[in-house]
């Protein structure tokens, strides 16, 4: 087994692993559990892309992984902020439409 073959098998293995983790998205029970599965899938995806990129000497794939890693926390941060909005800070717009 050559080195690229080994790296590709490892990429497939990692991908299968994190894809199984997506069962957590189905099961929940809370949204935060679902977000964890998405986060794990992101990390696994980055690892798989790196393994693939190095195995096939595709430099652009490493840039894709770099972009994903840079923005890895972005969706989760937006999620945590969005979900923890207390009901009290209704935007003015909303209060008005509801008042009418």
């Amino acid at each position, binding site marked *: 087994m050559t080195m690229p073959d080994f790296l590709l098998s490892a990429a497939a293995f990692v991908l299968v692993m994190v894809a199984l983790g997506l069962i957590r*998205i189905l099961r929940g029970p809370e949204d935060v559990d*679902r977000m964890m599965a998405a986060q794990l899938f992101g990390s696994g995806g980055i690892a798989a892309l790196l393994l693939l990129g190095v195995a096939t000497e595709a430099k652009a794939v490493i840039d894709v992984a770099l972009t994903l890693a840079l923005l890895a926390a972005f969706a989760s941060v937006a999620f945590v902020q969005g979900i923890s909005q207390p009901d009290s800070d209704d*935007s003015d717009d909303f209060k008005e439409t509801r008042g009418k």
Partner: protein
Amino acid sequence: MTLALAVDIGLAMLILAMAGWTIAVRDTFASVIGFVTYGLLLTLVWVRLAMPDVALTEAAMGGGLTGALLIGGAARLRRTEAAVRTERPGMLTRTLAAVLSATVTAALAICVLNLPDPAPTLAPDAAAKLGSTGVGNPVTAVLLAYRSMDTLLEAIVVLLALFGVWSLAHDRFWGGCPQLRTHADSEGILAYFARILPPIGIIVGVYIFWIGADFPGGKFQGATILAAMWLLVIGAGLAYFPPISQAWLRILLVAGPLVFMVIGFAGIVTAGAVFAYPIGFAKPLILAIEIALMPTLVLALALLVAGAPQRMPPQ
């Protein structure tokens, strides 16, 4: 069956399952999480299809802005969601919707099945003329030399979308500041994160923009990364959106398309056709357009996520 084929089949099944679940699930937040994961899967699929340019766009858009945009929307809709859920559309509406969806799906399937095989391609021509454009990445050559009209219209569409969002502003907030719905703690972990990451993120964004001339990358992907960094700083409460009445903001927003149009129409005089570049000047002109478009795209994308102005600037 080779390993690569097995992975491809697995990815295809997974993406179908994820898409189905994202539509079927009733909770908006869960659905958005499904969609973010779906975007990650799409990135992997584009890499497997050997289209790193598209994969890079999907990684930046799907991983960064789309998720934030949808989560913001879901947070805004949350209070009305319970009321919406109790309403069930009538049988007629549901039947019509089902028929319409089935028709569209069938039409798409017929189109895909009837595509000529092998597909007609302009790729060899695009590659053959690459030398005359001065850029090394054929995708950039298509976007800014062969089909630059499309790219100009795309940039204008992004601007029009932003004007559409702004037009939703309440009269008394017109010209005010958009706001992210945050409750940030300036000493918290998020503020720390938003201080550390953006300086490196800006380098990566500019790098992705810069290599776009010769390798997968470009202004759109770079601009998305920069917009995400700006949103992160604002989301952590370390900065605020400028009022949309600011002159510098409006100038930067129109500068990109304007420079693009000026260079495009100057082509009539200098090269004999609209959007033609004089021989030998293609590369610097393409670069000028990209650099002018960059701030336009960064501002427009970030402000699209931010939504309509919600407060007046402090006096």
